[in-house]
């Protein structure tokens, strides 16, 4: 009864500030507080109780409660609790105190909320537009319920170009992207360099917005959305698919049959296998080790075939429906999967041995792109990036879902905090995934694949789900709604957090290390940019303020 204990603790501490609380299950807690005390409560949770910041969500709740809703989600990893701090805001001029001075990681979340829902974070220090373009008229917010999903305001001006910040004195600007050779997806970085050294950068991304959340809230239904969710990202699609379904199931208090849970676990781990092998290949390609690039793709291919045999498609598995899964793993498939795993393991072992003694790779990656434990906490970095800095978090163990509470595995950590450690973490996690799948195959019991759902899903309930994607924690938040679709669905993909750590990672590094540093978080821009935005010039993110950069540059000049 962690949720209840924590709630008692809050009650003693904050007393009358708490307006209402929902305890949907043992490890979920929603606390509604007075808007003016959000800052105070989050400070306590983040600083004293040492919670990890997860996501900020803004929602237009006016058609239902006549108010706006803001949620800051936190995770207590050791206590296995996911907790939301929510506040209702008045319908006219919604605003809330910013928490970014305590929790820098909330910066993007709050700016996104301001752009899309029109909730003003008061006291945020860098309120440049994040998601919406400069050509988008003030006061038009696509995620408000009175805007249609295919509506572009008449005042929208596609010609208006984005204004970049001036480069600091003494620095050259190098544009990087939007279509570049090392990464597949469009994103644009402007590097401020001094000689060979990178002094700062400005990120202009959010180019892959497809309006997914808005589509889901306005035209799809509960069982369409899993297919939409897995097309958020082609690499870790199944993660989004499962995370969405789980958050709806949680909101509706449904429990899928055990066999379905095992199958979900197996598919998630298969996906992790192919994603990690892909990443190791690409990372080697970036540092110029093409042999291993080819090798790891060769080793990876049988996994894709296996996935196709199980689900009928190599990538987009279309695995989940609310309350279950659609594909079965038959005894023949089981046998075949086992032999694929055996082969994979025997082929991957020599690769890891070769890589971990390779002096060239070590030289290119040791001490590059460092993000230490302090940054992990303040920027909310997750996944292999956090684990490579010795921060022992893994949603599979901390917030177990599907069948992860019934299998044994180790969480791999390293201490180096650099690209090299991230490489090691990923390479070793492959073996853990193989171990997990084998256990699932052993333990999987017979039974139905889907739950029979007799009731209509309840309305207005909230569900949270965190799933450990290959890149880190993928967090979904759902409020169930009318018309067979959710009212609000918010996706926080892992790259959304990890990308915010990039400026710190590449600062004062050689420009040649930029690509591998960026590559090391395994960025997935289509995940990050899943929202709605319109212009190429949109969404510049400058995580560094001008003053800081200037100060940096000056220090260099003086020194």
């Amino acid at each position, binding site marked *: 009864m962690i949720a209840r204990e924590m709630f008692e603790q809050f009650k003693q501490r904050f007393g009358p500030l*708490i307006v*209402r*609380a*929902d*305890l*949907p299950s043992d490890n979920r807690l929603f606390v509604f507080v007075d808007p003016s005390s959000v800052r105070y409560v989050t400070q306590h949770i983040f600083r004293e109780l040492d919670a990890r910041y997860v996501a900020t969500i803004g929602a237009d709740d006016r058609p239902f409660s006549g108010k706006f809703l803001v949620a800051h989600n936190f995770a207590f990893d050791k206590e296995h609790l996911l907790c939301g701090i929510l506040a209702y805001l008045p319908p006219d001029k919604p605003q809330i105190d910013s928490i970014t001075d305590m929790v820098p990681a909330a910066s993007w979340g709050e700016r996104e909320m301001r752009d899309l829902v029109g909730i003003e974070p008061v006291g945020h220090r860098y309120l440049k537009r994040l998601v919406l*373009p400069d050509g988008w008229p003030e006061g038009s917010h*696509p995620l408000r319920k009175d805007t249609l*999903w*295919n*509506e*572009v305001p008449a005042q929208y001006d596609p010609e208006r170009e984005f204004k970049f910040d001036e480069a600091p004195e003494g620095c050259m600007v190098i544009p990087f992207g939007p*279509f*570049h050779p090392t990464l*597949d*997806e*469009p994103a644009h970085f402007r590097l401020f360099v001094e000689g060979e050294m990178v002094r700062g950068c400005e990120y202009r991304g959010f*180019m*892959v*917005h*497809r*309006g*997914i959340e808005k*589509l889901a809230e306005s035209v799809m239904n*509960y*069982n369409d959305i899993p*297919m*939409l969710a897995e*097309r*958020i990202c*082609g*690499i870790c*699609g199944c993660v989004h698919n499962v995370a969405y379904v789980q958050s709806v199931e949680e909101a509706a*208090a449904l429990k899928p049959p055990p066999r379905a849970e095992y199958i979900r676990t197996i598919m998630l781990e298969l996906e992790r296998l192919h994603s990690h092998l892909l990443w190791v290949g690409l990372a080697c390609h970036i540092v110029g080790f093409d042999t291993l690039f*080819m090798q790891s*793709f*060769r080793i990876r*291919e049988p996994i*894709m075939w296996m996935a196709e045999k199980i689900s009928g498609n*190599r*990538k*987009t598995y279309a695995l989940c429906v*609310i309350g279950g899964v*659609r594909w079965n793993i038959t005894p023949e498939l089981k046998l075949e999967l086992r032999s694929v795993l055996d082969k994979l393991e025997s082929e991957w072992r020599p690769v890891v041995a070769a890589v971990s003694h390779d002096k060239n790779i070590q030289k290119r990656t040791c001490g590059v792109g460092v993000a230490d434990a302090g940054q992990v906490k303040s920027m909310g970095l997750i996944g292999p990036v956090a684990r490579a800095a010795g921060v022992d978090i893994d949603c599979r163990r901390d917030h177990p879902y599907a069948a992860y509470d019934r299998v044994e595995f180790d969480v791999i950590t390293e201490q180096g905090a650099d690209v090299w450690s991230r490489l090691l973490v990923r390479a070793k996690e492959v073996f853990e995934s193989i171990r997990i799948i084998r256990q699932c195959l052993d333990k999987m019991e017979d039974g139905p694949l889907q739950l029979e*759902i*007799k*009731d*209509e*899903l*309840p309305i207005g*309930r909230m569900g949270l789900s965190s799933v450990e994607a290959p890149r880190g924690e993928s967090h979904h938040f759902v409020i169930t709604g*009318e*018309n*067979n679709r959710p009212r609000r669905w918010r996706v926080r993909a892992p790259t959304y957090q990890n990308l915010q750590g990039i400026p710190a990672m590449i600062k004062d590094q050689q420009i040649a290390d930029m690509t591998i540093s960026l590559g090391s978080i395994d960025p997935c821009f*289509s995940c990050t940019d899943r929202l*709605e*935005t*319109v*212009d190429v010039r*949109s969404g510049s993110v400058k995580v560094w303020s001008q003053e800081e950069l200037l100060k940096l540059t000056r220090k260099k000049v003086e020194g």
Partner: protein
Amino acid sequence: MLKNLCQKMFGRSLWVYHANSGGCNGCDIEVLNALTPYYDVERFGIKLVGSPRHADVMLCQGPAMRSTAQALKRAYDAMPAPKLVFAIGSCACGGGLWFDSYSVIGPVEKIIPVSYYIPGCPPRPEAIIYGVAVALGLVDKKTAPVAFKELELPIPQYHPGDLRGEGELVVYEKAEKV
């Protein structure tokens, strides 16, 4: 006509540039996959290049987004003629799942002329290679008339009204007032 042109112009080798204008990664990886040992398109002289200025062919993935339309157009203009454009995946061919979302313009043909379409979500590497091989005249086009029928999907859909049932949901403790 196009086929003759292809054979004449690109007889020996084809340098391709791949541009993702806003899809998920699915199609990207399949294109990458086509380069790796199992499929190995380099044996047909097909090579991936990093700049549109070196390329004969552009492989487009993902729908045309409002945000990337200009960049896509610029990349296309930067390619030397004669040039071909392949639309890879349902997104590039027809706009995909999000064809009418307000941040999406639609299929890439709305921005640049497309010569060949390779559908699929994502298309298999074999399909991509086959498409390119057809363009090169290495294999013949195989077509057969197919009539599609809408299938009854075995997925339950919960519509309010017809599924109203008994039963109470137990776990959710609502609104504990303090």
